[in-house]
């Protein structure tokens, strides 16, 4: 079971959109995941427990040791599939 942390400004709005899309995509591809959401400000204290960090905007405010994917395309709809594939790829490693 892979663990994904989705972070956005308030841990509510855009992260819910992204988290839902990741869950659906992983289910289609048979990847077992738990997806949790948080605020960007909390990322550093939480990231250690996860395999992948997905942010909805640019995350430049700190350092984490896990892979980070920026998923703004899941909000704009432009390049959405490519980003989802990249996430699945990362989780299959």
């Amino acid at each position, binding site marked *: 079971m892979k663990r994904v942390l989705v*972070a*956005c*400004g*308030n*841990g*509510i*709005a*855009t*992260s*819910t*959109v992204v988290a*839902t899309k990741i869950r659906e995509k992983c289910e289609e591809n048979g990847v077992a995941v738990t997806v949790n*959401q948080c*605020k*960007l*400000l*909390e990322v*550093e*204290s939480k990231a250690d427990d996860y395999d992948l960090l997905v*942010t*909805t*905007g*640019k*995350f*430049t*405010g*700190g350092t984490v040791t896990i892979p980070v994917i920026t998923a*703004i395309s899941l*909000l*704009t*709809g*432009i390049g959405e599939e490519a980003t989802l594939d990249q996430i699945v790829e990362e989780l299959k490693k």
Partner: protein
Amino acid sequence: MQIFYNIFNVILDAGATVMLPIIITIVGLIFGVKLGKAFRSGLMLGIGFAGINLVINMMKSSIGPAAQAMVENFGIHLDILDVGWGSIAAVTWASPIIALLIFAILATNIIMLVLKITDTLDVDIWNYHHMAIVGILVYYVTKNVFLGVSASIVMAVVSFKLSDWTAPLVEDFFGIPGVSLPTMSALSSVIIAAPLNWILDRIPGVNKLDFSVKDAKKYLGIFGEPMMLGLIFGCVIGALARYSVAEILTLGVNMATVMVLIPKMTSLFMEGLMPISDAAKKFCQEKFKGRNLLIGLDAAIVVGNPDVITTSLIVIPLTILMAAILPGNRVLPFADLAVVTFRVALPVAMTKGNLFKNIIIGLFCTAAILLAGTATSPILTALATEVGLDLGSNMITSFAGPSLTVSYLIYTAFTGNLLISVPVMLLAIGAIWFFMARKGRQSMAKA
């Protein structure tokens, strides 16, 4: 006829948790969402509302008496509870006229796009609540649906134009092209920040000031973590209420609970609205295919910037101190301290990360929010009670809704002496629009 009237009354009497599923199902069906999915969306919103009600109940019963005791002990008169933007959004979505407002706002966006007077395609239906709440409050005060819808339309026009004008900031400072942020919680600060930044740049000496704070996160990081903020906040209020040690600690944990649970409940709302938002997005993107549009997104995408975070971590504790001494303020800032990042994001971009100016501007913005929050609390509390939030005798507000400077001004214009206030408002908007159009697209970035 009588039977319809009876059914309608039963639903109205049952309150928001029953009305929300019905209204949202209908909105979903209109957008072409399948019945089963639309109903699940609606039910999820009803659940979200019930959940928020539970958390607010916990909040008012634990911090309400403590805030009262604090008033008696020290004369710190902060008796209006900040229940957070999510709670106010819940009240907004539970209003009987919400469906009408959603379509009015969407129609405003489409018409402006067709007339080419905006480039922002805003299908972030969720954030329509910032525009809708003003219309709902105006309707609640005036009992006039036309005025309510008009107020939301004005909010929409102002939101889309401010988004257009700030898009260069989003591109240049935050490095995200092709996107604008029609989220009033972030945009509202601009009308304070733009003139204030202009003034600060022209005061000799002051315009040279800047400093940087190393390790702001190391020492102030706890102000960015809702649960730690809630715990400390609860304990301090408990101490000021002269509670026993056990009571102080209990209040701390309770407040931490509220801070963590409110966003969880609010995300149920977001989840419920997603199918409808998606349907609206598909519909609009097909309509305007081929045109170079700015896609309107939630301001959440820019608040991860390190300058925004540093500014917020400093502004949050200063705002709490300011609340105690700001003349006329009665708001006890709490739940929305977690989203100060949104309020300072665009000012930070405007000053290009000058921390000195950011803190000054940030404090002006939060001060304006506290004062507008105090002024609009009675009417907001009455509205929230009517749609079914159980508040007891407590007054509520947030850092969103009518507390936002732009929203407050438009709300005031629509509930004042209409013959004077509405023309003044339209003139002001027109003048700013004219000024911005003359300065050209890059003006915000340079100003």
